[in-house]
């Protein structure tokens, strides 16, 4: 019951942990929520945000811009890393019509995991472009739904035509250890970037 440690004596902020985030991107049904749930210390929570965009109605002869409001659902989980750091994992809506909000989500992210169904590799092209263009480190998790390796890391790198090879990890994100391996591959790759 003691919040004093967080907020008293001006030195307040020092005692509060620092929040970090990693994005989990990928098409619908690819396993984002499952992955978050496998490593999160709380069951994945879901929240909705509404975004207002100016748009011009097609049928509107006067072409007066209207505000349209879209609700975007995102889910997230939490991992307490140590006493000073807490990591949030955000499942980002894969649909391209939600991309206007990706910049917000990606700002200040340590990196991203692009979860991919090996039978639908093309679904990841757009996410990969997004992270490449913004120079956000990412790893590709190939969710092997049938427990078989349906492709090799080299094939995936070739198919995605990556500017710089990204780590490709075969995974079953229902398993915590498997999800951890994907996250660690991303972080090791980010570390290589940081070392320069």
């Amino acid at each position, binding site marked *: 019951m003691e919040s004093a440690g967080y907020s008293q004596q001006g030195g307040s902020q020092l005692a509060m942990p620092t929040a970090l985030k990693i994005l989990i991107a990928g098409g619908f049904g690819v396993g984002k929520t499952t992955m978050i749930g496998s490593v999160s210390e709380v069951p994945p929570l879901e929240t909705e945000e509404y975004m207002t965009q100016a748009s011009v109605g097609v049928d509107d002869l006067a072409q007066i811009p209207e505000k349209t409001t879209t609700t975007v659902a995102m889910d997230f989980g939490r*991992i307490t890393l140590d006493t000073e750091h*807490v990591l949030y994992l955000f499942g980002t809506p894969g649909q391209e019509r939600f991309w206007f909000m990706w910049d917000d989500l990606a700002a200040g992210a340590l990196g991203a995991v692009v979860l991919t169904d090996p039978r639908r590799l093309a679904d990841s092209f757009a996410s990969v472009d997004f992270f490449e263009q913004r120079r956000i480190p990412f790893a590709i998790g190939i969710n092997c739904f049938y427990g078989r390796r349906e492709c090799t890391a080299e094939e995936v790198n070739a198919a995605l035509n990556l500017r710089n090879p990204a780590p490709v990890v075969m995974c079953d994100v229902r398993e915590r250890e498997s999800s951890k391996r994907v996250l660690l591959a991303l972080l090791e790759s*980010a570390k290589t970037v940081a070392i320069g």
Partner: protein
Amino acid sequence: MGVGKKKSSWFDEESGYLVRPYAISGGRTSPEGSDFALITLVVAMPASRTLDRRREQPELTAILDLTQERPLAIVEIAARLDLPASVVKVLCGDLLDKSMIAVKKPSHEASAPSVELLERVINGIRRL
């Protein structure tokens, strides 16, 4: 979609118009370049315990109750109160003005993290 997916109480399917959040935040949405990010951490200040709750908006006291014992991110408060994050940002702005909460912004280092920070994250994940 997702877990525990539910229709939000504040979204009026019929009119497609969002009534409740605007009312709660007095018609304000979080301004561009708001001080709050989705993962800004919020914790109630000890002084908030002596606040006369009957005079405060219920959503404000709900935020104080949630963050009494440990810091929560804006997005966690939003999920627990079933409010859009942008509305929670406005409400937390009000609480901050009243010195009822302390906040911690996410690391500005995160978009170009140091090797040391990344190693701490790596160690934290390995320990899971």
